[in-house]
Structure formats: structure tokens, C-alpha cells
């Protein structure tokens, strides 16, 4: 406390401001931080404003990046992908399990929503809301993106497996099924997201 900006107005503590900036999606970081700064009276008030603004901007951003019907379709595809993978690797990992499929779907969807919330601004030319957006629109063609998606999903699944094991060692997802499910989900979701981006072109967009 006790900090001021250049005009001797009270300014939020840098540490808290940095934390809030981290939590905000890039697209709205600038103006939301500015608004919070302008409304600043005390650290508690700042945190209360941030607690209202940050979740709202994240949800808004997710909703805008992926419409609800697409989100439901993606959830269904991930769930179906896991069941297909479980059937495929039933000899190695046992029969399909509905609970495992549901928890896998929840984790993958949480990852995708996280990705949607924190990817680049929707107005950036070449923004692609695929699970593994390219760094530049002209770089990888579609097939390469799908390949990269498959690779990253395998990597992601293994990483998730480690965290899952640390938290719930007795409820470990079967390894082969998880990896195969990740590949299948990625292959199913990537074209859907590329298509979503194509049909999004005609929709009104945020001014830059």
C-alpha cells in the first residue's frame, strides 16, 4: 500500500496488479487493468473488483471463442474418443469404464477451455481456435497441425497422467487408453475447430 502513480493518485500494489494481469486473458488485459487501476481505492477494493472482473472476462472470452453447441459437440467427441480408445485397447487396459471416460473428458475439456481463454486476441489475423493454434497462420498446413496435435496430445496425456497419479494414485487412468483417446480426440476436434473458425469469419468482430 502507499504507492502512487505519476499524478500522485493512489495506485494498486505492483505485486497484486501483476497477479491480476497474469490471470486476465491477453485480449482484455490492457483495458481491464486500466479500469481496475482507475477504480482503485484500497487493496481490498481492488481485489474485490478483480474477483468480479477476472472470472467474467475469462468466461466471456471462452463463450466467444467457442459457442455452446460446439462446446457440447466437442465434449461428446472427447467422450466418444475415450470409449473408442478403451474398446480398442481393452486387452491391455481392461473393458471401457464410464467413470474413466467422464474424468478424461472433464480434464481434456478443462484444458481446451483454458487454451481458449488464454490464446491470442480473437481479432488477431489468423487466429485459429484449434487445440494447438499455430504461431503464425502461414506456417503449418492443416495436416501438419493435426500431426502436431496428435503429438502434443500424447505428451499432454502423459503429463496429465503424472499429476493424476500424484493426486489419486488408486484411480489411475489406463496409460494406453489415455494416449489413444488423446489422439482420437485431437483428430476429431481439430477439423471441427478449423471449421468453426471458417464460419466465424462473417460474424461481427471486436474493433482493434
Amino acid at each position, binding site marked *: 500500500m502507499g504507492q502512487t502513480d*505519476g*499524478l500522485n*493518485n493512489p495506485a494498486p500494489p505492483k505485486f497484486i496488479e501483476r497477479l491480476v494481469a497474469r490471470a486476465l486473458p491477453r485480449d482484455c488485459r*490492457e483495458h481491464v487493468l*486500466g479500469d481496475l487501476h482507475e477504480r482503485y481505492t484500497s487493496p481490498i477494493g481492488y481485489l474485490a473488483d478483480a474477483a468480479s472482473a*477476472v*472470472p*467474467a472476462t475469462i468466461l*466471456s472470452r471462452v463463450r466467444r471463442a467457442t459457442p455452446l453447441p460446439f462446446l457440447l459437440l466437442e465434449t461428446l467427441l472427447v467422450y466418444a474418443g475415450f470409449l473408442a480408445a478403451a474398446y480398442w485397447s481393452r486387452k491391455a487396459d481392461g473393458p471401457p469404464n464410464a467413470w474413466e471416460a467422464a474424468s478424461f473428458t472433464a480434464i481434456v475439456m478443462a484444458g481446451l477451455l483454458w487454451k481458449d481463454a488464454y490464446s491470442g486476441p480473437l481479432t488477431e489475423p489468423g487466429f485459429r481456435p484449434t487445440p494447438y493454434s499455430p504461431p503464425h497462420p502461414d506456417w503449418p498446413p492443416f495436416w501438419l497441425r493435426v500431426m502436431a496435435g496428435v503429438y502434443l496430445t500424447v505428451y499432454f496425456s502423459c503429463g496429465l497422467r503424472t499429476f493424476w497419479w500424484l493426486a489419486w494414485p488408486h484411480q489411475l487412468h489406463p496409460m494406453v487408453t489415455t494416449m489413444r483417446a488423446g489422439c482420437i480426440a485431437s483428430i476429431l476436434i481439430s477439423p471441427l475447430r478449423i471449421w468453426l473458425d471458417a464460419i466465424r469469419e462473417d460474424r461481427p468482430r471486436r474493433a482493434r
Partner: protein
Amino acid sequence: MARTESLGPFEQLALTAILALHDEGYGVTIHAKVEELARPKTVSLGAIYVTLDRLEEKGLISSRQSAPTAERGGRAKRCYRLEALGERALHESAVMARRMGDSIAEIWGKDWIGNWGRQWGKQTG
């Protein structure tokens, strides 16, 4: 004539605030104006962002980034302006609200708004 978007009560408040601020409204000022219009209800800042985002997605408003200012810690504002579609939607809402008010006035009498406003003002201080 093409159908306009139907607006929710909170969207009507946000559009009215943008109109009242003469296309120079941004998060903080729009929030203050909406709170003033929605009195005695309080409105969270987050609700304003969500609503502005939704209105922009519907094409009812547009936004532009202003130059950074020192009062905001060197950060830019996002100023919102009403688009033609938004003006039409707000106009329709205002006409509908007027019609509703007239219908109620026929039953409760013409000075019901004044009496109710005074009574509400006393209750809310």
C-alpha cells in the same frame, strides 16, 4: 424491415449508458452509469464486461482502443459506441417500455410513477 435483437433488461441498461455517454463510455464510466440507472440494485464490474462483450458479438455496439493515460497507470481505455443495429434495438425496447407504462397508468392512474418513485426514494434513502 429486418428483425432486431431482443434485449434483456441488463442489456437495455448497458445500451442506454453507452448512449448517455455519447460514445465515449468505457468500462468504469459505463459501470457507474448503469449503477445509477439500476438504483437501488448494485451492479458488479464483471457483469458489465460480460454484457458489453455479448452486445459487441451481436453487433449492437463496437469498440475502439483509446490512447493510454497516466490516471489509468499508462493503460488504454476501450471505448464503446452504439451501432445502428443497437440504436434500433434500444429504440424498440424504449417504445415497448413506454407502451407498458401507458397500460399500467390506465389501471393505476397517471400519477402512479411519481408516487411510486417518491415512495421508492424514501425506502432507499
